[in-house]
């Protein structure tokens, strides 16, 4: 059909189109908040700096092999009717030694900074804020060790400070993996172990993360947010989180939440006696968070109401024991749910005016 020149042109055009497509796919708009290619801290940057040169070397080699494959196929193609008599080469020792040694050398060169970076990233920083991260079925608990704060799903850290994370999972839990791509690689949360991971953000910002080890039905829904704040804002946040529940709010917790619906069998409220369980997220300052259900839903009255009313409907849980039950099935009315949601949204918030739903 096509003669050799035309075929070569076709091949080159095809290769060009493919490469353009590939480049387009790569350079297309990508998100800023959960993206390992857009580091916002020194550790993620260090990783990208290690990766990038070898990525390009690999790309060049890859393109080279693809082009070479197309080239040998077309250049030595037997025309129909032609019967060529190719030289029956069995090998070439020099070449074979060469193309064994050269890749080995490239890999050896790659190995040196790789090992150096491994140990660099494993080094525990001094003067770091220490936070214990516990992956639970399907949310993240954050305990600020020195500050004495226990919160859930949303991390607040000051800019330009080292954060030393102890990644854990309850001994009777499953494996999760904590990952904020803009700030560092991931670390698994393994039952019975405590793994070290450090993060550090250069500037103020908001970053997203997700569980990265399959952990069941709502693995995809186990998301997290990191708020990087100025030193002053961070200190203010710490103070607010350290405060117990306002005395005026304690009766509601004790009567409605604890006695009537047994919420405190799983959820803690600092300042309420007997409400210390860590099975579910600590709710003392729920209203200060911007999302709930581990980043699934925006913090507003409607969403919270639906959640309190029938959580399994909002987040697939299957037969998991110790999951938030459907209170609808336990006889709660929508109005009751809304009342509770309103309390959780507005009464636990340090500043209720941030929520339009709180008058």
């Amino acid at each position, binding site marked *: 059909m096509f003669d050799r020149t035309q075929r070569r042109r076709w091949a080159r055009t095809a290769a060009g189109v493919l490469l353009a497509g590939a480049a387009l*796919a790569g350079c*297309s*708009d*990508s998100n800023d*908040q959960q*993206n*390992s*290619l857009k580091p916002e801290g020194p550790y993620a940057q260090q*990783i990208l700096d*290690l*990766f990038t040169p*070898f990525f390009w070397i*690999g*790309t060049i*080699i*890859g393109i080279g*092999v693809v082009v070479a494959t197309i080239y*040998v*196929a077309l250049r*030595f193609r037997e025309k129909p009717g032609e019967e060529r*008599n*190719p*030289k*029956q*080469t069995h*090998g070439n020792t020099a070449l074979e030694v060469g*193309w*064994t040694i050269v*890749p080995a050398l490239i890999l050896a060169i*790659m*190995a040196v900074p*790789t*090992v150096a*970076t*491994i*140990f660099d990233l494993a080094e525990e920083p001094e003067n770091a804020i220490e936070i214990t991260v516990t992956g639970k079925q399907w949310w993240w608990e954050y305990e600020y060790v020195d500050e004495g704060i226990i919160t859930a799903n949303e991390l607040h850290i000051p800019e330009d400070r080292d954060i030393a994370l102890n990644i854990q999972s309850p*001994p*009777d839990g*499953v*494996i999760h993996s904590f990952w904020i791509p803009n700030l560092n*690689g*991931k*670390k*698994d949360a*393994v*039952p*019975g*172990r405590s*793994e070290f991971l450090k993060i550090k953000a250069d500037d103020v910002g908001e970053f*997203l993360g*997700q569980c*990265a*080890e*399959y952990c069941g*039905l709502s*693995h*995809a829904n186990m*998301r997290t947010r990191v708020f990087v704040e100025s030193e002053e804002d961070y200190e203010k946040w710490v103070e607010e989180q350290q405060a117990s529940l306002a005395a005026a709010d304690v009766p509601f917790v004790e009567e409605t939440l604890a006695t009537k619906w047994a919420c405190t069998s799983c959820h803690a409220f600092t300042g309420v006696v007997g409400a210390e369980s860590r099975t579910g997220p600590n709710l003392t300052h729920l209203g200060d968070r911007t999302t709930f259900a581990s980043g699934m839903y925006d913090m507003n009255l409607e969403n919270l109401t639906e959640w309190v009313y029938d959580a399994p409907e909002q987040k*697939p849980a299957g037969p*998991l024991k110790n999951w938030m039950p459907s209170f609808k099935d336990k006889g709660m009315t929508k109005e009751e749910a809304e009342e509770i949601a309103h309390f959780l949204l507005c009464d636990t918030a340090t500043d209720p005016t941030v929520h339009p739903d709180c008058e």
Partner: protein
Amino acid sequence: MTTVEEAVTQAPVERARIVGRPTSSTGFWSWFTTVDHKKIAIMYGTTAIFFFLVGGVEALLIRIQLASPNNSFLDANQYNQMFTMHGTTMVFLMGMPIAAAFGNYFLPLMVGARDVAFPRLNMLGYWIFLFGGIFLYSSFLLGGAPNGGWVNYAPINSTPMADGFLPGRGPDFWAVGIIMLGIGSVATAVNFIVTALNMRAPGMTLMRMPVFVWMMLVVAFLTLFAMPPVTAALIQVYIDRNFDGNFFNAAMGGEPILYQHLFWIFGHPEVYILILPGMGIVSEILPVFSRKPLFGYAVVVFSGIAIGFLGWGVWAHHMFTSGIGPVAVAAFGLSTMLIAVPTGVKIFNWLGTVWGGAVRLRTPMLFALGFIAQFTIGGLSGVMHAIVPADTQQHDTYFVVAHFHYVLFGGLVFALFGGFYYWWPKIFGRMMNEKLGKVQFWLLVIGFNLTFFPMHFLGLEGQPRRTYTYDEGLQWEGLNQLATLGSFTIALAFLVFLVNAFMSRYSPPAPSDPWDGRTIEWMTPSPPPEYNFAQVPVIEHRDEFWHRKYTEDDEGRLLRLPAGAAVDTEEHEHLEADGHGIHMPSPSYWPFVFALALPILGYGFVFKNWYILAAGVVVGFFGLVAWALEPATAEDEGDDSGAGPGGGHLASAAVEGGARSRPIVDEGVH
């Protein structure tokens, strides 16, 4: 050991019979009871292609669900079953069995044997594969399919069902099903090893074996040693889950990471088990369609062996983020970089094979070339994983999904299609349609790359694996939609293949050597008779058949030899007219019966039903004993060639002029 004279003069022992031995050589029952490696291979291949389709449909469902954010086409539980079964099916019910299919058909033919060493064991391997696949899939109807990922990690898969970490009995089906399939794999591995080492035609030294045979030999050893650790791990999972074991239960002092070590020390050799047959096929196709020998045969062979050995030393590169510490992680990063060397060498040797050749771009060649290009891309993303700190960003994201699909689909599957087109005429006696083949190839190239190339970016841009949905605002929709479009293009390519396969029955009969082949399977008729070779060839070269057709002049150019590269049709005619067949192992029921015991036991274990277990034990025991008492070859076939208790006619001797083979070693029961 009986001598030939003793065996001949001994009267055959009367054996107790409960059922008569099957005797059909045509029709359904001949397939059902066959021990002929070629029929078994066709059954392996057909069943594996069926599972390929099923796994493909699962992939399409996954891609539909992921085409848009917050989609509700599949719910979480359905999706989790889909990705688990897609991976499980492709690895255990497609990849390994298709290799077994090609190995079964061509390993004996390529070494000049008449069958494998243990024909009934061979059949057992097939039945276990079929029953294992049915067993796994029956779970959909029995409380839900496996939904814990194809790796079935502890502790999520090892906590008791009552804890509800995963709905249903999926993890039990997976653990029991994979152990079951492993038994079949080991049986086949043993068969291939003994056949390749003991049953080569006279003159076929190891270094004259085709590369495909070498790769299957390495794969067989890998299988033999890789199956035990995962079997142990799954037994532990089963005990943890059903009998309050604590192997992986941290709350009682167990260690979850132990499972990962045990699984991956199987799992990494497993991926070489998957890819090496493909590399073997490509190593056969490229020389034929370039009219040149494989460039650096020894290097290619030794690289394959090196990959086999080194593959045992890299397992924890699947565990870089699991917290095993910087020293371990650095060590495995280095060993992973090391294994890239023999892998890369092969690529260059393959290119060197095509270079300077007389290239015919027929369909098998296109697929082989596609393998080279795409496997290389997959290998390079693998090297990216070896950069450990970078891997902490890539692990458990779509970057990994891209990597392994490039090596296993762009690599292995392309090689398998190449093998189908290449060997179809030999197996079925018909050519596949060349135009349709090219259409399939291009559709597959476009579809495959469209599906998986974007995933490199999705992974680096934050999309994790095994997630049934993703949120808006992360800008992943565009690339996901591209991938979904690509997956349907792949489906179309598959349809073209199926059409081509069916239509081939209407093409004219294929000659015995349609491609001007190099290896001795092309010396037989298409398809070969049951006994493969009328007279087992004496091997004097690597690429023996080629050297019977051509010699080289001083410059290393080809000189066609006068007609003498016999396809031994004359001998066949002589045989048929004579009425004296070559003794072949006889068909048998017992592999089927014994294999049947395994799913029965399987259900007994999953449902913890002691009656079912007892039934399985009875069936298994009965099948095994009946098998042991049955000779490999039925005695009443005019036996005068000294069959002992085990039969043993397969070992072929190059008997000058004679069509009848003689037993060489005659020990024990096969």
